[in-house]
């Protein structure tokens, strides 16, 4: 058995090395990312004890179907994003290495306090990355909110510990089954707030606009795709699988999710800057994913989450690059920008259409699955809200795409002479990877069975009706 702890340790080790080997930082980052991607395919499912104490007394790593899929996707996306924005990684190599370690740790750990530690590590790398834009007040805002959030998470966690005397996820999960969950509203809710700050749920996400809205191609896509993906995977782990929620809490969380979804879409509709549109769409998607996790749907939610983070990786990279080169990301000033960058345009379009959930793209498959799930749970209202959100989402994405593809004045035919004179040059890496990702989205949409048989073969649990990893590994106990 290959120990998945390598996924955490190796990047961390290289992070220390990178301080010494200043000139080769970039290469080290690349090595770590490649190592992790390769490693993901080698590691095997199981529970791994760290430090010699048997669970639930010691810390353990849980590698089951869910976390395996998560580390697979997150590591691959991490590699793709740093390759796409290769030119920007030098400055932040060390931080990125630490972040990679933290992200893997968050996904793998089977211990709630350990999760807090990794969460803080990842958050701190996030604060540092966000300073790249030189908009320090946004970073400061992010820092304060992130710290408060994780403080509240810890607060709730400690109360849980006081009640159950354990920090092990599986242990707490089992103990909660025979406990009146109605009495756990306060600690669970504090933990929820803690994760919600990072997961961008309204109203705990005041930092998002400043940070995402000014991020460059590398950092924007990292935040929107890798960071958001990780935190949502963890959210699904904690609130979808570990903690047993009372009906009251489920209702409150679903309400928060729905509000996030609708408010996010509406806010995105009112925006003109590409990155702001994308960030509000990310917020909405987070709300959607969170509420689906809370509803107890795992498989369709994961599908939707994958849809979100893969497409956002492509779109934020492109949007960041555009604003880096053209000095603006206002759609009105970038009319017809894709006319000169067709491959990038196609990738962006495919991603956007997939995010809306239009057929022939992967997003449709996830949308159908989550609707099927919701209907099987008789959650008609949530389904109706999701469809409503889709309408708004479609409206602003199509508006954006139309602006970026077809320049022209109202009442005059679209013509090349209306194309903006701002120039954006996309390098080879971005073109190839963005196009490849959009091709994958397309193929997965045309033949979803491809996804199902290949990617999900190792993930049989997710296909089952009521997946709970707790019963597979029992947290290593």
């Amino acid at each position, binding site marked *: 058995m290959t120990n998945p702890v390598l996924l955490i340790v190796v990047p961390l080790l290289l992070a220390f090395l990178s301080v010494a080997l200043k000139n080769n930082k970039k290469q080290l980052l690349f090595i770590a990312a490649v190592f992790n991607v390769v490693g993901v395919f080698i590691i095997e499912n199981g529970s791994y004890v760290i430090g010699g104490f048997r669970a639930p007394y010691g810390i353990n790593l849980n590698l089951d179907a869910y976390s395996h899929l998560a580390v697979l996707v997150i590591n691959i996306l991490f590699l793709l994003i740093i390759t796409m924005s290769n030119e920007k990684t030098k400055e932040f190599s060390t931080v990125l290495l630490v972040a990679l370690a933290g992200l893997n740790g968050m996904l793998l750990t089977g211990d709630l*306090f350990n999760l807090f*530690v990794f969460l*803080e590590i990842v958050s*701190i790398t996030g*604060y*540092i990355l966000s*300073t790249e834009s*030189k908009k*320090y*007040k946004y*970073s*400061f805002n992010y*820092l*304060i909110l992130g*710290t*408060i959030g994780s*403080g509240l998470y*810890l*607060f709730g966690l*400690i109360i849980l*510990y*006081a009640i159950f*005397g354990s*920090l092990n996820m599986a242990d707490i999960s089992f103990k909660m089954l025979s406990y009146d969950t109605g009495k756990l509203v306060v600690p669970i809710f504090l933990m929820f707030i803690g994760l919600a700050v990072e997961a961008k749920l309204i109203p705990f996400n005041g930092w998002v606009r400043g940070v995402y809205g000014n991020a460059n191609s590398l950092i924007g896509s990292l935040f929107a795709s890798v960071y958001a993906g990780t935190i949502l995977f963890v959210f699904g782990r904690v609130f979808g699988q570990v903690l047993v929620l009372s009906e009251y809490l489920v209702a409150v969380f679903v309400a928060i999710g729905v509000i996030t979804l609708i408010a996010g879409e509406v806010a995105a509709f009112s925006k003109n800057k590409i990155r702001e549109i994308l960030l509000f769409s990310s917020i909405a998607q987070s709300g959607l994913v969170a509420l689906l996790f809370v509803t107890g749907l795992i498989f369709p939610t994961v599908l939707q989450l994958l849809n979100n983070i893969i497409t956002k990786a492509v779109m934020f990279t492109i949007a960041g690059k555009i604003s880096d080169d053209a000095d603006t990301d206002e759609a009105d000033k970038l009319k017809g920008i894709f006319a000169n960058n067709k491959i990038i345009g196609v990738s962006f379009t495919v991603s956007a259409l997939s995010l809306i959930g239009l057929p022939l793209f992967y997003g449709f498959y996830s949308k159908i699955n989550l609707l099927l799930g919701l209907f099987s749970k008789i959650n008609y209202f949530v389904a109706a809200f999701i469809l409503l959100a889709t309408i708004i989402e479609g409206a602003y994405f199509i508006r954006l795409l139309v602006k970026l593809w077809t320049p022209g004045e109202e009442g005059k035919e679209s013509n090349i002479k209306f194309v903006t004179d701002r120039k954006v040059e996309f390098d080879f890496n971005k073109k190839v990877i963005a196009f490849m990702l959009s091709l994958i989205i397309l193929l997965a949409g045309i033949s979803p069975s491809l996804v199902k048989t290949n990617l999900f073969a190792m993930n049989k649990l997710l296909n089952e009706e009521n997946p709970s990893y707790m019963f597979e590994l029992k947290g290593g106990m």
Partner: protein
Amino acid sequence: MIQYVSIVLMLIGIYGLLIDRNIIKIIVALNIFEVGLNIFIVSVGFVSGGVAPILTSVNSNSALIYVDPLPQALVLTSIVIGLGTTALALAIARKMYNAYNSLDLDEIGGMDND
């Protein structure tokens, strides 16, 4: 009792976050919040009449009541993380002062609509 004190400390910290406009004061408030939290964590491990869970020659009798040692370990970690965060926050505060020539969020801000 000590738990109430800690919660009061946390609330003071949050109150500071709510009303303070000065970056340094906000960082201080954040620290007060964290201190309150840390005290709370430690307090959880307290068992009335318990002794330190260390096997010594004095109290080798395992029937004795021990205090919970884990929260102390946790709080160590938490303090370290808090320290790191504060350091980073101060670094950012310095950068902000260089960039905006002010430490007052109201003066720095006012660009909410950008």
